[in-house]
C-alpha cells in the first residue's frame, strides 16, 4: 500500500514537472517564431521595456553633473593658481629681505 502511494506521488510530481516544462517550452517556441517577423510591443517581456521618465531624468541629471564637474575642475585650477601665487609672493619677499 505504502509502495503504491509512493509510486503515485512520484508519478504526480513527474507529471506536474513535465506539464510545467512543456508549457514553458511552447511559450519560448511561440516567442521565437514571433521574433522572425514584427513583434507587438505589448508581447515583449517586461525586461525589454525601458522607462522613459527614468531616461529623461538620467539625461537631465547628467547635463548638470557634467557642468558641475567642469566648474569644480575650474575651481581647483583657480585654487592651484592662488597657491602658486602665494608661494611666489613669499619667495619675492624673502629675496627682498636678503637684498636689504
Amino acid at each position: 500500500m505504502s509502495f503504491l502511494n509512493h509510486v503515485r506521488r512520484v508519478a504526480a510530481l513527474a507529471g506536474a514537472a513535465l506539464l510545467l516544462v512543456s508549457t514553458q517550452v511552447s511559450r519560448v517556441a511561440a516567442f521565437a517564431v514571433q521574433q522572425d517577423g514584427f513583434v507587438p510591443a505589448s508581447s515583449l517581456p517586461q525586461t525589454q521595456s525601458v522607462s522613459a521618465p527614468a531616461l529623461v531624468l538620467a539625461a537631465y541629471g547628467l547635463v548638470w553633473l557634467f557642468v558641475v564637474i567642469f566648474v569644480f575642475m575650474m575651481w581647483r585650477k583657480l585654487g592651484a593658481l592662488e597657491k602658486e601665487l602665494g608661494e611666489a609672493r613669499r619667495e619675492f619677499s624673502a629675496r627682498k629681505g636678503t637684498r636689504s
Partner: protein
Amino acid sequence: MKKLVPLALIVAAAIYAVVPFLINAAPEEATMGLIYKIIFFHVPSAMMMFISACVCGVASAMVVFKRSEQADHIAAAAAELAIVFGAIVLVTGPLWARKAWGIWWEWDPRLTSTLVMWLVFCAFLMLRKFGGPGSESLSAAVGLFGMALVPFVYWSVNVWRGMHPRTTVIPTLPETMLWPFWLSVLAFLCLYSAILAVRVRLEGARAEFEHLMLAAED
C-alpha cells in the same frame, strides 16, 4: 565684461528655474511619447558645442596668423567647453536612442561625425598639455580643423540619410514645444558665455603668472 558674467549667470539661473515646468507642461510627442523631451537639453548642448567649436576655430586662426596670446586663451577655453557640451550631447543622445530606436548607439553619419569632432577637440587639449614648447601653434591648427568639421556634422543628417532626425525638425515644432526649447537654448547660451568668460580670465591669469615668474628668474 566683469559685470556681464554675473548677469549671464542670473539670467541662466532664472530661466533654468522656469524651464523644467515648461518642459513638463509641453505635450508628449505622438510616436516617441515622453522621451522626446530630451530634445530640450540635447539640442541646446549640441548648439553650444557648435558655437564653441567656431569660437575655438576663429581664435585658433588668430593664433596661427596673428600670434595673439589672448586668442590662444580663448581657443583653449572654447575647446574645453566644446568637450564638455559635446560629452553632454554624446551621453544624452544614446539615452534618447535607447527608447526611440531600441539601441544605445548606431554608426549613423551624424553620431559618428559628432564623435569624431569631439575627439578632435580632445586632441587639441592633449596637444596643448603634452605637446611641449610651441604646441600652441600646432593645437591652433587642430582647432581650425575642429571648426571645419561643424558644417559637415550639421548637414550630415540631410546629405547622408541615417536614423537621426533631420535639421528641419526644430522649425516644425508646435508653439507649446518651441517656447521651452528656445528658452532652454537661451539658458544654455548664458551659462556657456559666463563659463567661457571665467575660463578665459583664468587662463589669462595663469599665463600672466608664468610670464612674471620667468621675468623674476631672469
